[in-house]
């Protein structure tokens, strides 16, 4: 495992995430968040989760940026600047401690791609072996989402529909 690609990518992720929270201009924060999504999509693709990378690039970098910008132009003046509080000492001490704790806990996670980890032992072999035979679908992600776990996907579709309805009911006003 080489680190020549990982480390610049993770550095860029950290820089864009920190920039999005630290920058004073809201429009710049939105664009930094979009570029963060692009780097995150690269990270997913590098880890082999191409479907997740696709969704992250399209939704996180494309759609969410547009919706954020529209919200911004609809609510705030063009050059909205934020006055941020200076750092508080409890956060400066507590958050690195939390990070160390999480790193300590992460050492207990199974190795990446470990065949005997619990996640790849329960139902995953069944899906991988039977997807092509049962539904002629080589992409196992699609067959899991759309057939084995179709009820989950149906309820997620209901969630998306509900969000659209809620936005329309709250924001759309009849012209007077």
């Amino acid at each position, binding site marked *: 495992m080489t680190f020549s690609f990982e480390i610049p990518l993770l550095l860029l992720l950290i820089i864009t995430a920190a920039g999005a929270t630290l920058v004073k201009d809201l429009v710049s924060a939105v664009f930094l968040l979009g570029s963060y999504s692009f780097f995150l999509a690269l990270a997913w693709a590098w880890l082999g989760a*191409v*479907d997740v990378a696709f969704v992250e690039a399209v939704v996180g970098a494309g759609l969410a940026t547009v919706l954020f*910008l529209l919200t911004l*132009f609809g609510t705030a003046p063009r050059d909205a600047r934020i006055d941020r509080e200076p750092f508080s000492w409890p956060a400066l001490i507590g958050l690195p401690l939390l990070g160390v704790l999480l790193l300590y806990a992460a050492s207990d996670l199974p190795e990446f791609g470990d065949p005997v980890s619990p996640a790849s032992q329960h139902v995953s072999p069944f899906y991988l072996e039977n997807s092509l035979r049962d539904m002629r679908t080589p992409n196992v992600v*699609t067959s899991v989402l759309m*057939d084995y776990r179709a009820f989950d996907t*149906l309820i997620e*579709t209901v969630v998306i529909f509900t969000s659209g309805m809620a936005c329309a009911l709250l924001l759309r006003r009849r012209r007077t």
Partner: protein
Amino acid sequence: MIHVYDSVPVLTLGRVLIPLTQLFGLYVLFFGQYGPGGGFVGGVIFGTSMIVSILIFGHDASSSRLARTVLHGDGLGLLIFAGVGGLCLIGGGEFLNYAALDVPGLDDAARRYLGILLAQIGVAVDVAVTAVSIMFSLSVETEDEDVHAGTP
């Protein structure tokens, strides 16, 4: 209300790129069973292409007519998805058990394939319509002021 963006390169590129984006969205949707992608991503790409069309050409342009028509289809995708499940019930199986789809001349695997495809179309329609609908909801508020700069 978003008006047409007054820039020749943007307008020209929009005319070329928006149909290509829609074509790519359809490709992602219908080849989701062979490669990465599927209903959700295909729907988002298609919806985003319509949003970009509105951002570039404005609410009133003829090329935004598709988006305005699509807006009336809220809930249609959900109906398609749940309707496929209901057809499975009518065919004598469980809800969303695509093997029970009553299509003559197909074996179980081909029926499941067809069911997955129909359900993906349902998801794509739902997501695309919702994206355009949220975009309309967010952008109608700005019409009374001079901040219709939704086109950065």
